[in-house]
């Protein structure tokens, strides 16, 4: 790659500097290897660009030296080029449009991918930041680290200079003052060094310091300080410039604002790790990390809130390998010290903070980048084909000019200028197109694929793609001029300007290659189409249509403090909501399907000793008696929860899903069996009273973990989701639901009010998005194949006019002519298809991990792709073929 870029340098300088330069660059890139492949790639790209730019600069100097006073020539050449191009508006339009589409699409997709994959949030020296997770054994699933474990890490790690912890965040409420209307707010408690470790400062006021934490002399401040996000500051406080020092209420408790973060600040962690990233308000942890599991005196107080994300900054001279090594050691120490740890055995893993944050998006983004690069390749081939076809058509003009004494250099310069004018036109189109595409992309990109810092069109990326396409265009445009010297002799000796088969074979190969690339793109698009339809057809275990959901948070300081109170409130909520006309049933659950949260614990099979419980892990969900009916999940055996179990706790009962039932009872029914479940860390026995259909809570495409439902009364979580089964369009009921909830208690924030279907749609969204893009790419490629094929076949016909005329004169029928012309297009198509099948198989293999419900060899996809390509290519070559067969022999013979 560097060698190629080095070619941009003038030959004299290239000779003088030699390969030495490239080797030095490679050595410098090699220095970055420990920082990861992405960094190396970034360096490589930077060096390549540097080479191109420097080479371009040297070349301009050479040219400047060679053409003193060439300005006048240049403007004359430009005028001439514009005149030549405007004389052929069809060609100019197609060529510049091809360039615009190729450059524009690439500029947009690569800018976006760059933003997502490489744009680190505004942290100080982000390369040094490391995130630590626990990982479920035997799976790639991250689980947040428990507070006490984070305390141990902060104590014992030496490879990380300092460690910050953020509790994974909860939904709560924020209000400007007591009694004012509340808003939903995501709240996270962080250690007081959290912002310092990231190296960010506040936009207004200050971030936390040592005086805000529990270690401050005199303990944590009585009125907790709070740092607001830019969004919360703008929406809840109208961007009040005097906000710092004001009192605000978080979950009903008084706090005072010490700072507001800049708009682009957020914690960059993977969205599938169960950690809230769009935090509205940060509070300093008021207790030491190590005592986190015992604390209930905090604004956030729930057992499951004690886990979170550990962020560390590498100590000087340390690297990730050292961190992992140290984590392994501490893990073993922990397992030795506490036998319960040994049973869980969820190892720590460390990764670069930002790499981890974008890991989920990388495969799909890489697939899309590859796709759009193929489009650029097709565009380049197409432009090369078009220009070379055109060059042949102009060969006569050029050779005559050469024969009349035009300098070869003069011709080359003029053709170069023509190519550049064309590229300029394409670039103008590309900028307009890219601007439109970027805003379109911004509107439709699913949140998990959006760039953290917003999406911007990157001018350098756009220019780089333009430079690549531009050089292809110039080379393809100039080649005929260079050859015209040879042709000139032909003109003088009377041979027509039809020079052998070489270049026409090259043009054929170009078209065949474009066909192959289009096949690959179409196959990818087809496979994604099947994936999306398969995902939409998947039975998730519940009924997404005609259901309305919303979430509420019960974190008021002075009320709903006990499970019994919360359970009574849920009964009131359900009873009132069901009175709304159009609501058929109502139920409450801890976390909705596909809603992102999870609560995973070990459980005991009948008779299993407690230390083995961690081997069976299930998702636990609290639910009320109305839940299964409201969400539309069938009860397969036994019964659901009763209204009585919603309010009273007489016996520990659970309902399990089908998968867990099969696990518990390999023979007979699971109903009536006793399993062990942890309650507040202590083991209790619970009786299975019912079995329900399995719900895909985690992802649409796979079953996920077994599920255990416990009555809401028993574990009454402070965040719940309410599900309403409706008679008609659920969205129309939203205002009535809000009014009802306001009447029950205005201090309870109602949020995420949306149809249940939305969760399913959002789960499909990334693939649907990829499908749209890929389909667009494939269409672009196919249309340029049609243009390209039409071009070469028409050229072929043009050059064979006299031959065709002669044939017809000696008795060939129109059909013969048609067949002979078509056969060349068909042969090209055949070659292209053959190569395309190979390429497409490779593509299908590469994107296999992104597919669902369809195999890479799916006959329907392949069949339709081949049919579409055949149809398109036959049409493209049939038009000139029909025209050729309609020639009258005399006319054709007169052509030369």
């Amino acid at each position, binding site marked *: 790659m560097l060698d190629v*870029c080095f070619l941009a*340098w003038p030959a004299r*300088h290239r000779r*003088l*500097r*030699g390969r*030495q*330069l490239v080797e*030095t*660059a490679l*050595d*410098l890139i090699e220095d970055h290897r420990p920082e990861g492949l992405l960094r190396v790639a970034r360096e490589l790209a*930077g*060096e390549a*660009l*540097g*080479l*191109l*730019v*420097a*080479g371009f*600069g*040297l070349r301009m*100097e050479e040219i400047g030296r060679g053409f003193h006073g060439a300005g006048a020539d240049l403007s004359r050449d430009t005028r001439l080029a514009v005149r030549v191009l405007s004389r052929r508006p069809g060609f100019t339009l197609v060529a510049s449009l091809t360039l615009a589409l190729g450059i524009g699409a690439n500029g947009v997709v690569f800018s976006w991918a760059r933003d997502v994959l490489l744009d680190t949030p505004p942290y100080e020296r982000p390369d040094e930041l490391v995130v630590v997770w626990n990982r479920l054994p035997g799976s790639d699933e991250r689980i947040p680290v428990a507070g006490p474990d984070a305390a141990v890490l902060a104590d014992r790690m030496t490879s990380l200079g300092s460690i910050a912890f953020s509790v994974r965040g909860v939904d709560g409420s924020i209000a400007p003052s007591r009694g004012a209307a509340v808003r939903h707010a995501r709240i996270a408690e962080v250690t007081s060094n959290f912002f310092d470790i990231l190296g960010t400062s506040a936009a207004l006021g200050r971030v936390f310091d040592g005086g805000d934490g529990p270690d401050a002399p005199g303990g944590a401040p009585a009125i907790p300080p709070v740092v607001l996000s830019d969004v919360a500051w703008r929406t809840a406080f109208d961007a009040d410039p005097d906000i710092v020092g004001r009192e605000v209420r978080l979950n009903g408790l008084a706090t005072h604002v010490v700072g507001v973060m800049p708009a682009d600040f957020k914690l960059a962690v993977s969205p599938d790790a169960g950690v809230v990233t769009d935090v509205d308000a940060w509070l300093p942890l008021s207790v030491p990390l190590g005592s986190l599991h015992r604390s209930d005196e905090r604004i956030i107080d729930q057992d499951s809130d004690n886990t979170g994300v550990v962020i560390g900054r590498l100590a000087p001279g340390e690297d990730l390998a050292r961190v992992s090594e140290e984590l392994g050691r501490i893990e073993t120490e922990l397992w030795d010290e506490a036998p319960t740890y040994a049973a869980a055995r969820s190892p720590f893993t460390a990764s670069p903070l930002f790499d981890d944050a974008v890991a989920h998006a990388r495969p799909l983004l890489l697939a899309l980048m590859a796709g759009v690069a193929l489009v650029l390749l097709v565009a380049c081939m197409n432009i090369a084909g078009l220009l070379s076809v055109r060059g042949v058509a102009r060969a006569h003009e050029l050779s005559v000019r050469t024969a009349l004494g035009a300098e070869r250099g003069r011709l080359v310069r003029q053709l170069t200028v023509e190519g550049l004018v064309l590229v300029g036109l394409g670039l103008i189109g590309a900028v307009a197109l890219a601007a439109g595409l970027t805003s379109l992309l911004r509107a439709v990109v699913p949140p998990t694929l959006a760039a953290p810092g917003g999406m911007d069109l990157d001018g350098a990326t756009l220019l780089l793609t333009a430079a690549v396409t531009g050089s292809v265009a110039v080379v393809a445009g100039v080649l005929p001029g260079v050859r015209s010297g040879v042709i000139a002799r032909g003109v003088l000796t009377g041979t027509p300007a039809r020079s052998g088969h070489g270049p026409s074979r090259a043009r054929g190969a170009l078209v065949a290659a474009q066909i192959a690339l289009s096949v690959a793109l179409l196959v990818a698009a087809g496979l994604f189409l099947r994936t999306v339809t398969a995902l939409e057809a998947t039975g998730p275990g519940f009924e997404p249509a005609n259901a309305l959901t919303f979430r509420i948070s019960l974190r008021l300081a002075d009320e709903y403090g006990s499970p019994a109170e919360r359970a009574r409130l849920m009964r009131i909520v359900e009873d009132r909501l069901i009175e709304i006309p159009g609501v058929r049933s109502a139920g409450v659950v801890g976390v909705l399907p596909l809603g992102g949260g999870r609560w995973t614990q070990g459980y005991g099979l009948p008779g299993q000793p407690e230390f083995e419980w961690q081997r069976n892990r299930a998702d636990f969900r609290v639910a009320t008696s109305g839940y299964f009916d409201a969400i539309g999940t069938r009860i397969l055996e036994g019964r659901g929860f009763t209204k009585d179990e919603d309010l009273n706790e007489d016996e520990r009962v659970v309902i399990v899903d089908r998968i867990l039932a099969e696990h518990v009872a390999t023979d007979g029914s699971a109903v009536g069996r006793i399993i062990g479940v942890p309650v507040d860390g202590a083991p209790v026995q619970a009786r299975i009273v019912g079995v329900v259909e399995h719900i895909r809570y985690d992802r649409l495409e796979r079953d996920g973990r077994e599920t255990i439902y416990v009555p809401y009364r028993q574990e009454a979580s402070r965040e719940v989701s309410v599900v309403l089964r409706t008679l008609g369009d659920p969205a129309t009921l939203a205002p009535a639901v809000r009014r009802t909830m306001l009447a029950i208690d205005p201090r309870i924030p109602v949020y995420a009010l949306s149809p249940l279907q939305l969760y399913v749609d959002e789960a499909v969204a990334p693939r649907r998005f990829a499908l749209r893009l890929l389909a667009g790419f494939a269409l672009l490629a196919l249309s340029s194949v049609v243009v390209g094929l039409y071009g070469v076949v028409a050229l072929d016909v043009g050059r064979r006019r006299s031959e065709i005329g002669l044939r017809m004169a000696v008795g060939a029928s129109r059909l013969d002519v048609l067949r002979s012309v078509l056969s060349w297009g068909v042969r090209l198509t055949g070659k292209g298809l053959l190569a395309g099948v190979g390429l497409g198989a490779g593509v299908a293999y590469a994107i296999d991990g992104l597919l669902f419900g369809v195999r890479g060899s799916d006959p329907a996809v392949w069949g339709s792709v081949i049919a579409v390509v055949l149809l398109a290519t036959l049409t493209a070559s049939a038009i000139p073929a029909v025209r050729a067969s309609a020639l009258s022999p005399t006319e054709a013979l007169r052509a030369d």
Partner: protein
Amino acid sequence: MTDALPLTDLAFNILVALADEDLHGYALVKHLRALDGRSSLRTGTVYAALSRLDDEGLVSESDPPGSEEDARRRYYRITAKGLGTARAEAARLSAILELAQRKDLLGPARG
């Protein structure tokens, strides 16, 4: 003394770097990157500047010093003309700096 003045920052930095020792490309890039903390300084940029300096006769290629070094690597050496140019540029800059100092632009303001 030469029409190369004023030098670009990069050209001047290269001449200064080569003033007391011959360097090969890799060491030179590392040195320049460390000098102004720009880790994004590209090899191509440095070599292009070297090429220009070479064209003007301010630097030349030299053999590796001693035998312990990798003989493949090419070293760059400042020429007598290069040394003169660097001196002239340094004098020019120093005159500017002196002026700046007189106008209290250097160091903390007094009074």
